[in-house]
């Protein structure tokens, strides 16, 4: 781990004569993890907002940040916050920028990493990125991109549990001493993020951070609109999974057919290629495949996020379907093929008329089970900015400040989608069992 905040934490620990233990945590779940005691202080670009202040205690600020607007060079449509209405704008989910963009009526595209928003902006998949200046400085300096301006400033402060008031006092004092000795400034300077803006930290050393970046406090509990968004998320999940599964079934059929034993040299080569495909796609994580397709191939293959998600899932699951069909084809007794041949059918016709339909039936339970697995795997596509059901859940959970209700609703929706499938799979299995 490296970063100015790591150095600050170390300096603070030295100042207070304690030992700092670093804990890795997802940024979007910093606050719940803090509350449940995974760590005692959260020091990781937590922006002071009214909503968060209701929930946790903030220390005095240690950095003044700006929400920086970046667009493609020469794109005159992106001027200011108002110009972002209805435009696709990338940022990190659940950040202050996310809320600001929501207020401004922009079409928000959520990212989990700090480089990807800029890759997509370059590719024209989004119109702008609104993100903390620290991140924009470090990752946004890419060819073809330009800073439009800073829309708003705010404070980073250390997050503490409300009941740890004593600890908060100690931290505040420690930070104050670091600022007073110029040590904080030295750290910022080392990371080249010092500047006139940071003088405010010294100028008003005792001010409790406040309404600098205030947005209206969000509702506790879920609004009807959020529930509606959940159903939208579920629809995205279902549509994406269904299309991906249909493609995977077709692709799997092609692969399984290519892998049938043959004496013809070019067919054997095709079979070897199909086998290599299956091994490659089964042997590597679908997350990686999605990344490569969407970000890695961005220059060659200009797909939007939904199409890339469908393609990624389909390519991955085609490998699994191919294996299921192969097993299904092998399960058809050889006597069935011979009976077809004895009627005068060619091998190809016997395969089409007799082997395939039976193999397909044998494969159905496996395919239905895979569809259920695909429904759940589809939550991975949030890494390439598709807001499906699980992503919607995490966004709403952070917005509404509670994970229980969104979590239950999300689980309920997944269950509603997968249970009928699992019933279907069992019915088919029972029917096949009777036919044996």
């Amino acid at each position: 781990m490296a970063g100015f905040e790591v150095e600050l934490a170390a300096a603070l620990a030295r100042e207070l004569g304690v030992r700092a233990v670093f804990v890795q945590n997802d940024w979007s779940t910093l606050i719940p993890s803090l509350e449940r005691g995974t760590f005692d202080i959260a020091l990781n670009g937590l922006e002071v907002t009214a909503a968060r202040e209701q929930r946790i205690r903030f220390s005095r600020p240690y950095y003044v940040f700006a929400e920086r607007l970046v667009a493609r060079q020469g794109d005159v449509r992106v001027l200011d916050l108002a110009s972002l209405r209805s435009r696709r704008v990338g940022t990190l989910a659940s950040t202050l920028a996310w809320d600001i963009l929501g207020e401004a009526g922009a079409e928000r595209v959520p990212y989990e990493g700090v480089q990807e928003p800029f890759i997509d902006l370059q590719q024209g998949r989004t119109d702008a990125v609104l993100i903390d200046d620290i991140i924009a400085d470090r990752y946004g300096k890419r060819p073809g991109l330009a800073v439009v301006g800073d829309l708003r400033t705010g404070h980073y402060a250390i997050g503490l549990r409300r009941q740890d008031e004593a600890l908060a006092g100690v931290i505040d004092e420690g930070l104050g001493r670091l600022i007073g000795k110029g040590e904080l400034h030295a750290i910022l300077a080392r990371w080249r993020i010092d500047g006139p803006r940071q003088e405010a930290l010294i100028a008003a050393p005792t001010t409790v951070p406040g309404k600098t970046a205030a947005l209206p406090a969000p509702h506790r509990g879920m609004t009807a609109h959020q529930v509606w968004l959940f159903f939208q998320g579920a629809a995205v999940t279902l549509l994406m999974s269904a299309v991906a599964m249909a493609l995977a079934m077709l692709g799997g059929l092609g692969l399984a057919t290519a892998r049938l034993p043959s004496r013809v040299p070019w067919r054997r080569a095709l079979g070897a290629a199909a086998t290599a495909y299956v091994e490659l796609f089964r042997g590597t994580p679908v997350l990686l495949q999605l990344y490569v397709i969407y970000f890695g191939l961005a220059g060659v293959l200009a797909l939007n996020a939904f199409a890339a998600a469908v393609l990624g899932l389909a390519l991955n699951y085609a490998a699994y379907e191919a294996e299921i069909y192969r097993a299904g084809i092998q399960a058809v007794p050889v006597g069935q093929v011979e009976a077809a041949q004895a009627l005068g059918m060619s091998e190809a016709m016997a395969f089409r008329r007799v082997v395939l339909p039976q193999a397909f039936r044998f494969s159905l339970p496996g395919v239905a089970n895979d569809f259920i697995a695909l429904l759940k795997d589809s939550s991975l596509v949030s890494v390439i900015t598709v807001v499906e059901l699980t992503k919607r859940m995490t966004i709403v959970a952070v917005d509404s400040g509670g994970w229980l209700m969104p979590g239950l609703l999300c689980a309920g929706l997944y269950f509603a989608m997968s249970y009928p499938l699992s019933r279907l799979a069992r019915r088919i299995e029972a029917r096949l069992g009777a036919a044996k």
Partner: protein
Amino acid sequence: MSLMIVDGLAKAFAGRSLFAGVSLQIAAGEIVCLMGPSGTGKTTLLRCLNGLERADHGTVKMGDVELRAGDGAQAFATAALALRRRVGFVFQGWHLFAHRTVLGNVTEGPVFVRGQPVGEARPRALALLEQMGIAHRASALPHELSGGEQQRAAVARALAMQPELLLVDEPTSALDDDRTESLARLFRGLADGGLAILCVTHDGTFARALSARHLRLPAAGGT
């Protein structure tokens, strides 16, 4: 005039000879019974006759189609395909298409191999099933049938292709006496109409009822 001429057929599995130098001729309208102890290679011989199995030596000739044991894979496959359009086969294990109804099994060949319109193939198939006494099971799936019903459905499936020669492997193993007798009557009637039948059977009564020429395969390892 011989319909099929078999010359010098030999087959061994893993060095163990089943039969060698088998020659026989079957004329149109003739019924031949092939008998012999279990494991002597009767089924294997039948399979060699329509190319499901490739003999080690010998030829099978039917009109201008000749299946030669020594041919290349492509030539052998082509000849086998041509032969099978004229030769019906009823398996010892029936092998009805598991995913099709009885009627579907019987129309499959005429419609998809012969290209007959379904409207023609269906009534003909139903008439055949009627003749076999299983018309009432036309819409059943094979696994819903008794052994005897499956056996008769398999005969109907082969006959629907209007073969010139019917190769039948143990067609009475699952039939009761009455059914056996009526099958013999059916075969005799078909033979009267010109169909040649080569029938493997253990059943002496059936063989006698067919009043046919009998051939025996000697116990394995012989000749």
